[in-house]
C-alpha cells in the first residue's frame, strides 16, 4: 500500500443486511478497503459475496447498513451513481450485449458525449497500456470469453475507477491468462486503484491479495492476511471445517468401450455457436474421462451432439455400447443406457415449477412409471423419495417444487436421478458448478463410486481442479476441436492450460484414445 498509515479507507461498510423471502443473504457485514489494496472477499457459493457486491455497485438496495466512500457516508441508488463515485464492476456473467460491437458496449456504460470514433481510439489506448488486446469494432458475439472479460475490464478502466470489483474473474480463463490478469491488477493497484476480488479459490487469493474478508452464511467469519495463512486455515474460516478430500483410487484397466465418438463434425445453426471439427474419443467402462476447456469452445455443441438434442446426419459419429446412435433422439439414446446431467439445473435438468416427483418423470419414466400411456404417480413418488434419501437432498419432501431447492441440493437430486437409472454411460456438464463445497464433494464421491461399479463417465468441466481430482484421463476442447487424450497422472495444470488455448501436439490427434505423454 502506498498511502501513509492512518489513511481514510476508500470504502467502509458497516452492518450491511439484505434479506430475501427465503434467505438472509447478508447479515451485518462489515468491510474495509484501503486505497491501492487488493482485497479478497472469500466465501463459498451462497455465502453472500455477490449480494454484497451488488449492494456496493447499487444494483440492489440493502435493508440496513452504512456505506462510507472516502470518509463520507453515501447511499448508492444505482450503478450510474456508483460509477460516478469511481466504482467499476466486472460481472461474473458478463453484462455485455452480443449483437452490439465492443465500442457500442463500452459507450453504453459511459456518460458524456456519444462519439463512437473517438471512444474507439480511447479503447485502443487503454488496451495498449494495460495489456488487454481487443478490437473495438468487432461484434461481441464473435469474441472469446477471455476477450469479453477484457472488454468488461476496459469498460471499467475508461472511467478511471478508484475501486474495481471483480466477481470470480478467473473461472473463465486458462491458468496462463489468469497470470496475465494478475499482472494487470497489480499494475492497477500500484497506481492507487483499490480492488475487490471475489473468489472461492484459495490459492489465487494467496497469490494476489493483500487482505481477505471471509464470508459464511451471510456473515463475516474473519479477516486475514492471506500470505500469513495456509489454504487449510482459510478453508476452515470459509466452510467451518476442513476441506473434504476425495480418495481417487486406482482406475481399472481394459473395460469395454461404452461411448465412442468417431469423426464427429457438425456445423451449428446458431450464429453465435461453435462448429465441431473431427471429434474422436472413447470412454471405457469403469473410467472417468474429463474434457477441459474455456467455456464457449464447443462444449455446449458437443454435449448436445452426444445427448441427441442436436440431431446429427452421421449415424456412426456417436456409438453407445457399439450401437450407432447419431440419428437417435435423446429418448432413444437413453433407452440404450446413457444418462445426462446438464449444466443448467433449473429449466433444463429440472422444471422449476414442477414437484420433485414430477421431475423424476422427466428422465426416469422408463423405470415402471407408465401404464398404457398414463402415469403411475405412486411409483414416481417412491423413486423420488428414494433419491432424496440416498443422495441426502435437503428439501421439504417429494412434493416440493424444484425451484425451492438450493443449487447444491437440486444438483444432488438430478445427479441422483440419473445415477439411480443405472446408466451404462453417464455424461455430466459442470457437475459441481455453483454448488457448495459439501455437496460438491458428495457428488464427486458418488461419481467415483459409480465408476468403480463399472459405469463409463464423461465429465465436461471448466474447473481444472475438479477434473484433476476425479478423472482418469483428460482431454481438452478448444475452438471446436479435441486435443489428444492423456492420463491424468502423466500431466499437470500447466500443460493442460497450454492446450486450453488450442496449442497441443497436433500430429497424433487423429486417434481419440492415443495416449500422449
Amino acid at each position, binding site marked *: 500500500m502506498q498511502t501513509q498509515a492512518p489513511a481514510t479507507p476508500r470504502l467502509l461498510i458497516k452492518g450491511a443486511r439484505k434479506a430475501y423471502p427465503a434467505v438472509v443473504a447478508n447479515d451485518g457485514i462489515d468491510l474495509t478497503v484501503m486505497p491501492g489494496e487488493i482485497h479478497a472477499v472469500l466465501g463459498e457459493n451462497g455465502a453472500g459475496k455477490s449480494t454484497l457486491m451488488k449492494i456496493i455497485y447499487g*444494483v440492489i438496495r440493502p435493508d440496513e447498513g452504512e456505506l462510507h466512500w472516502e470518509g463520507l457516508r453515501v447511499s448508492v441508488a444505482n450503478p450510474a451513481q456508483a*460509477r460516478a463515485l469511481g466504482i467499476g464492476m466486472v460481472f461474473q456473467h458478463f*453484462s455485455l450485449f452480443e449483437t*452490439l460491437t465492443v465500442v*457500442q458496449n463500452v459507450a*453504453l456504460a459511459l456518460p458524456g458525449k456519444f462519439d463512437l470514433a473517438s471512444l474507439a481510439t480511447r479503447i485502443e489506448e487503454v488496451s495498449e497500456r494495460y495489456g488487454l488486446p481487443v478490437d473495438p469494432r468487432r461484434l461481441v458475439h464473435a469474441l472469446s470469453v477471455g476477450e469479453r472479460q477484457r472488454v468488461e475490464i476496459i469498460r471499467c478502466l475508461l472511467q478511471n475507477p478508484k475501486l474495481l470489483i471483480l466477481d470470480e474473474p478467473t473461472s473463465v480463463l486458462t491458468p496462463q491468462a489468469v497470470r496475465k490478469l494478475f499482472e494487470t491488477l497489480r499494475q492497477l493497484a500500484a497506481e492507487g486503484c483499490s480492488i475487490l476480488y471475489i473468489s472461492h479459490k484459495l490459492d489465487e487469493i494467496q497469490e494476489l491479495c493483500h487482505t481477505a474478508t471471509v464470508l459464511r452464511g451471510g456473515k463475516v467469519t474473519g479477516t486475514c492476511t492471506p500470505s500469513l495463512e495456509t489454504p487449510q486455515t482459510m478453508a476452515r474460516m470459509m466452510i467451518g471445517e476442513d476441506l473434504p478430500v476425495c480418495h481417487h483410487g486406482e482406475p481399472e484397466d481394459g473395460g469395454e468401450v461404452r461411448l465412442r465418438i468417431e469423426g464427429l463434425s457438425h456445423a451449428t445453426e446458431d450464429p453465435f455457436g461453435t462448429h465441431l471439427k473431427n471429434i474422436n474419443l472413447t470412454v471405457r467402462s469403469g473410467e472417468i474421462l474429463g474434457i477441459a476447456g474455456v467455456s464457449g469452445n464447443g462444449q455446449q455443441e458437443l454435449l448436445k451432439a452426444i445427448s441427441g438434442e442436436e440431431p446429427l446426419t452421421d449415424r456412426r459419429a456417436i456409438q453407445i455400447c457399439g450401437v450407432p446412435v447419431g440419428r437417435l433422439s435423446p429418448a432413444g439414446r437413453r433407452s440404450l443406457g446413457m444418462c445426462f446431467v446438464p449444466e443448467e439445473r433449473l429449466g433444463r435438468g429440472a422444471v422449476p415449477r414442477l414437484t420433485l416427483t414430477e421431475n423424476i418423470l422427466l428422465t426416469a419414466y422408463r423405470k415402471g412409471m407408465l401404464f398404457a400411456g398414463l402415469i403411475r404417480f405412486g411409483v414416481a413418488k417412491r423413486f423420488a423419495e428414494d433419491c432424496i434419501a440416498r443422495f441426502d437432498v435437503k428439501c421439504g419432501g417429494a412434493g416440493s417444487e424444484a425451484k425451492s431447492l438450493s443449487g447444491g441440493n437440486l444438483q444432488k437430486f438430478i445427479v441422483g436421478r440419473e445415477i439411480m437409472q443405472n446408466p451404462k454411460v453417464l455424461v455430466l456438464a459442470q457437475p459441481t458448478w455453483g454448488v457448495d463445497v459439501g455437496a460438491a464433494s458428495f457428488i464427486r464421491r458418488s461419481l467415483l463410486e459409480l465408476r468403480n461399479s463399472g459405469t463409463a463417465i464423461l465429465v465436461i468441466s471448466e474447473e481444472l481442479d475438479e477434473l484433476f481430482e476425479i478423472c482418469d484421463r483428460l482431454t481438452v476442447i478448444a475452438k471446436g476441436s479435441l486435443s489428444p487424450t492423456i492420463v491424468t497422472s502423466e500431466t499437470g495444470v500447466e500443460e493442460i492450460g497450454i492446450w486450453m488455448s488450442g496449442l497441443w501436439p497436433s500430429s497424433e490427434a487423429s486417434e481419440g484414445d492415443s495416449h500422449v505423454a
Partner: protein
Amino acid sequence: MDLSFFTSILFATIVAGTPLIIVALGELVTEKSGVLNLGAEGTMSVGAVAAFAVAHHTGNPALGILAGMAAGMLMSLIFAFSALTLVANQVASGLALSIFGIGLAAFVGKPYESVALASVVPLKIPLLHRIPVIGPAFFEQQALVYFSWVMLAAVAWFLYRSRAGLILRAVGESPVAAHSIGYKVVRIRYQAVLFGGAMAGIGGAFLSVFYTPMWVEGMVAGRGWIALALVVFATWRPLRVMVGAYLFGGCMVTQMFVQGSGMKINIPAQFLSALPYAATVLVLVLISRNRGTIRLNSPASLGQPFLPDA
C-alpha cells in the same frame, strides 16, 4: 393500360400501405425493447374510433389524429401495466388488449356507424407533384403519408445513430445486463410500448379519418396483425418495413388491378380479399424458415418477462 391507371394504382398502393408503415414502425420500436405487444389490432380499432368521433364533433381531422394517438397511448398503457409492471405473460396481455380494444371500439363506435365524414383535401407538395406519373401518386397525398416517411427516417436514425436507440436495443438484447449497468429497463420499455401505442392509434386514425373515411365495426380488418407480421418480414429493420408495407398495400388494391386491367376472368371478390392474409402467411413462412436470420435480427429478449431484483 394507360399511365393514369398506373398512377392511380400506385396512389392506392401508397395509401393502403401507409397505416401499415405507421403501425409496424411503432411495433418495431416496441419489439426492439424486448416487448411483444400483440394488441396492435385492438389499439388501431380504438384509435380509429376515437379519431373518427373527435373529427366528427370538431370537424377538425388533425384533432382527430391527435385523439387517435392519445387513445392508442392509453390502450398501450393498459398493456404495459399488465405486461411490465405486473409481469403478466406478454402474449396473453397482448391478446387481451386486442380482444378488449376490438370490443370497446365496436361499443363506442356504434352511434357513429351511420355518420359520414367529409373527405380531407390532400396536401400537394409544390413542384414535386408535377412530376409525370409518379408525382400525383407520391406527392398529392394526405399529410399522414408524408408523416409515415418522416417517421421511417426518424426511427431508422433513432435506432442506429442515437445513444437512446442504442440503449433501447441493448435493453431488448439483454435486460439483465442493461439493468446491471444501471439502465431502468422497465421505464425504457414503457416508453417503447407507449410509442408503439401512439403509432398504432395514428394508424387507426388514418383509416377512419382519411382512408374510408367512416367508421364500421371490424374495419381495421386484420391490419394490426398484418403489421405485426410485417415486423418479422422486415427482420426488425425500418427500411424493409416500408418495402413490405407497400407490397401488402399492393396486395390490398388488387381488386383495382383486376377491374382496371379489363380482364374478363370472373374471380369472386372474396378470393381477392383473402389475398393479403394469404400473403401474410406466405411471407412469414419465407422469412422464418431461416432460423439464423431470425436469431441475428430479432431482439433476444423478445417476449421474455423481466423483473429487476431490488
